[in-house]
């Protein structure tokens, strides 16, 4: 049965769009405005025109809400919408990446919510319901999960698969951000955008004012003023950053419900999202030296969808644990993607030499610049000062080498890179899209190579994919072959319905059993191929009919 939007969304939508008109009317009627050539009747005409606009708007919104219907079927989500130009869509449930519910303060008072459905295609949210009641939004989220479970249970006629997915999903809380962690998170967040915005404001608005004052102020006072300004700026950025991250992550909770991951967060605007386990592309554990020292880390969960709720537009849909004890993060990773004990293999020692040369070159360039500058302006410090950084370069080269590594597990490839922002990426073999092995001139001289496992994840933090950087050439050849072979095996196993992500029974099998799985899966994939062939035959026959 098709359903419609909540009636309460009519006033909300009308107000959202028509708020400007009302404000303008109030302003105009309070006497700040008169239309030339109309005389005393001016306000009246204005009122009539304004009222007409409001009526038209409300009428449009009523029509929009009444003409909008959606239905969650067994296999598709059907949406019919549009007042003048109609649009009807069918979204296959299997293709839906995640469902996000967001409510701002007003929407929470009215008890309505915005529901967004994400798919992997395109650069934007696939479908949005503006707006339904919160209960309905939650029901959609639950129903969608249930229908997808049933769909996949039917698809894999495997007895075990059905057993694993049948029954009511139980919810277990995986993670909750407590007050102290929120406080630490706030304290560590500095919003670097604030200085930029302030600078822009000052340079556009205040430039004329400032320059007239600057001439009258003596040099010393100017220096003090500058120092105060810089300190103030730092303080404001810190406060804004802290407030923003506290508002964003207030009351963050991550819950496992059946084979879905659900998160809730936000102080003013509540976000409420679900991520199916089998849509997880990559897990990233990120930390920096400070976090490492105090034993904290962050976790990012990537899917291929796009969500409006995530901060810093274009970063794609991700649930993130902003900050948690490292052990906790690792436990959670184990829950989501059972990787087991990771034993990272470091790059060969010759790579460390490469980093040392690289960083010493940087120091050398700085020294060169200092000498050049000294020849021109006579610097207040000796030009060899940058050379003091050399020990730091040595340390940093060693740290770069130490923190880098890769590991092939039973079901995942794990890579780790970076010192100041260290990222450990966990990619299930099944999620690999392409394998790229690149060797630049310097790497080839030392017999090194970089192997990248590309995924469809949408997190574009510097566009970094899981990469085993600076492994030996022989190892790179091996990795390339091995990753491809393991992807093939994972696909076969997945098809057989045994080793899908989210099906726990496939993990922790010993080698004997996994061999059995392989044999099974080969049989099944043969069956699949037959199915596909017969499907294509039927298409052909239909074409003949036509």
């Amino acid at each position, binding site marked *: 049965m098709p359903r419609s939007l909540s009636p309460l969304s009519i006033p909300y939508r009308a107000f959202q769009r028509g708020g400007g008109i009302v404000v303008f009317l109030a302003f105009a009627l309070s006497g700040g405005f008169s239309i030339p050539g109309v005389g005393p009747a001016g306000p009246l005409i204005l009122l009539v025109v304004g009222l007409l606009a409001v009526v038209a708007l409300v009428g449009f919104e009523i029509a929009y809400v009444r003409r909008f219907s959606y239905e969650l079927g067994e296999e598709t989500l059907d949406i019919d919408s549009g007042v003048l130009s109609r649009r009807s869509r069918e979204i296959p449930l299997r293709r839906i990446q995640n469902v996000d519910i967001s409510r701002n303060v007003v929407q929470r008072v009215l008890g309505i919510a915005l529901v967004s459905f994400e798919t992997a295609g395109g650069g934007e949210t696939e479908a949005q319901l503006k707006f339904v009641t919160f209960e309905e939004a939650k029901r959609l989220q639950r129903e969608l999960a249930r229908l997808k479970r049933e769909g996949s249970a039917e698809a894999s006629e495997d007895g075990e698969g059905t057993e694993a997915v049948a029954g009511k999903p139980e919810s277990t809380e995986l993670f909750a951000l407590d007050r102290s962690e929120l406080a630490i998170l706030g304290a560590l967040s500095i919003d670097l955008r604030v200085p930029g915005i302030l600078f822009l404001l000052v340079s556009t608005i205040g430039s004329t004012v400032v320059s007239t004052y600057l001439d009258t102020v003596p040099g010393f006072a100017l220096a003090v003023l500058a120092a105060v300004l810089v300190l103030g700026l730092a303080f404001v950025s810190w406060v804004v950053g802290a407030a923003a991250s506290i508002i964003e992550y207030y009351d963050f909770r991550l819950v496992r419900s059946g084979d879905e991951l659900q998160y809730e967060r936000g102080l003013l605007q509540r976000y409420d999202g679900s991520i199916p386990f089998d849509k997880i592309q990559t897990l990233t554990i990120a930390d920096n030296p400070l976090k490492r020292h105090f034993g904290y880390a962050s976790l990012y969960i990537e899917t*291929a969808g796009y969500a409006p709720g995530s901060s810093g537009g274009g970063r794609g849909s991700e649930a993130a644990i902003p900050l948690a004890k490292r052990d906790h993060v690792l436990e959670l990773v184990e829950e989501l993607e059972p990787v087991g004990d990771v034993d990272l293999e470091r790059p060969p020692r010759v790579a460390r030499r490469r980093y040392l040369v690289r960083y010493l070159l940087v120091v050398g360039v700085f020294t060169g610049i200092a000498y050049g500058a000294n020849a021109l302006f006579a610097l207040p410090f000796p030009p060899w000062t940058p050379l003091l950084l050399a020990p730091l370069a040595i340390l940093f080269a060693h740290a770069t080498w130490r923190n880098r590594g890769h590991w092939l597990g039973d079901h995942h490839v794990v890579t780790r890179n970076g010192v100041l922002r260290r990222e450990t990426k966990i990619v299930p073999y099944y999620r690999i899209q392409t394998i790229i*092995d690149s060797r630049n001139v310097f790497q080839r001289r030392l017999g090194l190579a970089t192997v990248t496992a590309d995924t*469809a994840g949408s997190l574009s933090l510097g566009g970094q*994919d899981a990469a085993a950087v600076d492994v030996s050439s022989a190892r790179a050849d091996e990795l390339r072959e091995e*990753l491809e072979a393991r992807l093939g095996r994972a696909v076969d196993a997945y098809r057989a319905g045994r080793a899908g992500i989210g099906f726990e029974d496939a993990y922790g099998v010993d080698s004997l059993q996994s061999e059995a799985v392989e044999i099974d899966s080969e049989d099944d994939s043969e069956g*699949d191929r037959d199915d596909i062939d017969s499907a294509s035959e039927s298409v052909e026959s239909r074409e003949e009919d036509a």
Partner: protein
Amino acid sequence: MNRLNPRIRLLWIVRALITATVLAGIAFGVGRVLAPPWLPAWTPAAVFVAFGGLGVMLAVLRYRAWRYEVREDSIYLERGVFTKVRTVVPFVRIQHVDTSRSPTERLVGLASTVVYTAGSRGADVSVPGLTPTDADDLRERLKRLAIRSEGEDAV
């Protein structure tokens, strides 16, 4: 291992020469309009020779480095002069396959086949320097192989 059609060198050389001509033209324009006294009159010629020569050399080297192979389960590409890149695209991950012919390609009678995946980088892998029939054949072959080994749920 397949190599590209040798005519691709011609295409790359023509492209390099076009770029070199444009750069030489810019140098000539700068010499005429701004006429800085330190700029010798033979600059445009030097620019053309330098960039043209470099382009021709790169075209030859690039042709020598390029290899591709359609394997049992994947397509394998090897390319790059300074940075050697080897890419493996498993058939299960192919989203769709295109054949494209740019104006310069049509000029020398060549075409490219482009393979798209859902990956976030290297989302499209292109094999240049194929004769149009080869490109169509490769596309058809890849399409068939991709359908045969269809991934249940790539993303």
